[in-house]
């Protein structure tokens, strides 16, 4: 099979892969679902900003402020374009996916929901798409309902449709599970939710980095994602929202930038997207985010998806051959590059630590999906996750490492 991307070239763009954890042993980084590595282009965009144009944005007349504003706002435009937004007014910069979801809960939620209203989520949500709704539910008295996840790791669509009959006001689900790797049928789910009269928020933290996502085609009302999982910096994320919804929403945090006018006892809000952005934003992170998207576009999101599909199929095959290993989630064609597994008789912490001693970085724990682990009766799992810079030889090394674990614990 011919790879869809030039993996050697891609890898060489990431300075961290030059590091040798132990002499002669470069890092095998299989923890991209937690955060991705950063290509030179992103690091340089940030350094260059500090060394050439560092200034506070939006209200400055001097040259540095103008350059900084332009760089930051072009990043916003590029990101808007990347997900198919109609206008950059629909792209709100937040800290991360988590803050994006909280923003919707606190602003849209408090303005639109009444005691007794239902919010429909799924059992495979990340904590960041559960806890904000629990907080809101507690504050104003809402019902939370959760769509069942099948044993094969897929959403129980029958259950979904029957829960939609409760007429939830909002439906929230992840595009791709960060534990199971399940890729949900967003377009179908969104259509059904809209037909039932609900607004839809999609957690795109694991999808936007890994395959093409178009908010118009999928008819998404709100989409949340984080730069740090897609080759960009931490400290910046996006809430995409349909302009008509955002226009009607009250502001979120208060302070500079989100206002048009302030008097001692009242303020008027600024126009979109600034209405939701209070205080000095993460300027260099925004610029770095723009550079990350530019980098991903240069590789091509379709190519990244193909590359990861190949890796996923390969990894599933190889993992299944290790005695005692059980991988959770659907078959390769429904699944992104995330392998959460258990290892008979060995706790995930021990697996991860032995792999670490072989310079292989994986994650062990509940991956911020406690309810899902609970459901599968797992205290924790070991997770290996891939990205555009992962290659098959690294999966081979993982398998060797797992045999080593076996040896130690036998």
């Amino acid at each position, binding site marked *: 099979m011919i790879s869809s991307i030039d993996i050697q070239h891609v890898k060489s763009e990431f300075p961290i892969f030059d590091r040798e954890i132990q002499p002669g042993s470069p890092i095998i980084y299989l923890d991209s679902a937690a955060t991705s590595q950063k290509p030179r282009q992103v690091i340089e965009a940030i350094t260059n900003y500090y060394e050439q144009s560092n200034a506070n944005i939006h209200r400055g007349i001097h040259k540095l402020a103008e350059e900084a504003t332009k760089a930051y706002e072009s990043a916003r435009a590029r990101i808007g374009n990347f997900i198919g937004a109609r206008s950059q007014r629909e792209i709100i910069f937040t800290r991360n996916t988590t803050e994006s979801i909280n923003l919707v809960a606190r602003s849209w939620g408090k303005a639109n929901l009444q005691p007794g209203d239902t919010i429909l989520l799924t059992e495979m949500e990340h904590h960041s798409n559960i806890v904000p709704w629990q907080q809101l539910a507690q504050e104003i008295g809402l019902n939370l309902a959760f769509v069942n996840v099948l044993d094969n790791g897929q959403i129980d669509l029958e259950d979904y449709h029957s829960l939609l009959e409760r007429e939830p006001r909002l439906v929230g689900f992840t595009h791709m599970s960060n534990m199971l790797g399940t890729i949900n049928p967003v377009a179908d789910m969104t259509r059904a939710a809209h037909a039932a009269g609900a607004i839809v928020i999609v957690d795109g933290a694991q999808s936007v980095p890994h395959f093409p996502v178009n908010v118009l085609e999928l008819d998404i009302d709100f989409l949340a994602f984080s730069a740090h999982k897609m080759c960009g910096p931490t400290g910046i994320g996006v809430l995409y929202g349909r302009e008509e919804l955002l226009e009607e929403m009250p502001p979120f945090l208060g302070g500079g930038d989100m206002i048009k006018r302030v008097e001692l006892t009242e303020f008027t809000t600024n126009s979109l997207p600034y209405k939701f952005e209070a205080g000095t934003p993460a300027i260099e992170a925004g610029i770095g985010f723009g550079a990350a998207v530019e980098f991903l576009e240069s590789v091509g999101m379709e190519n990244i998806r193909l590359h990861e599909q190949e890796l996923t199929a390969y990894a599933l095959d190889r993992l299944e051959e290790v005695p005692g290993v059980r991988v959770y989630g659907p078959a390769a064609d429904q699944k992104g590059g995330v392998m959460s597994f258990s290892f008979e008789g060995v*706790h995930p*912490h021990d697996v991860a*630590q032995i792999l670490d001693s072989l310079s292989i970085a994986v994650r062990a*724990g509940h991956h911020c999906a406690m309810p899902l682990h609970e459901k599968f009766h797992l*205290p*924790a799992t070991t997770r290996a996750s891939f990205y555009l810079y992962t290659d098959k030889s690294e999966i081979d090394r993982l398998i060797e490492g797992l045999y080593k674990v076996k040896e130690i614990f036998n």
Partner: protein
Amino acid sequence: MDDLYRELIIDRYKNPQLQGSMDPHDYSYEDDNPLCGDRIRIDVRVDQEGTVTEALFSGEGCAISQASADLLVESIIGKNLDEVKKLSTEHILELLGIQLGPVRIKCALLSLKVLKAGVYGLEELEEELL
């Protein structure tokens, strides 16, 4: 790695020496680490002078949490409670004979936390062990 997963740890994990529970007991406590699902319970009996005569642990979790519980429980038999209260992080690390990162150290310390909580209440010790 051989260093890290010293034979002792794997051995104690697979063949714990002091696993079990006792009823009656003088002190007993159980706690878990929700991050990874490690769970430890420790039961202790003392004589009139406050010297530990018997101690057992039970629980589930990673090799480090289970082996350190087994080793800890073994190390306190014959010790006075005053000495037990003074046991520190170093004691556990010495028993295990390895260095641990910030996440794994919590696995190792769970048993110490449980022991101390059993012996003198949880509040005082939160501060100390965090």
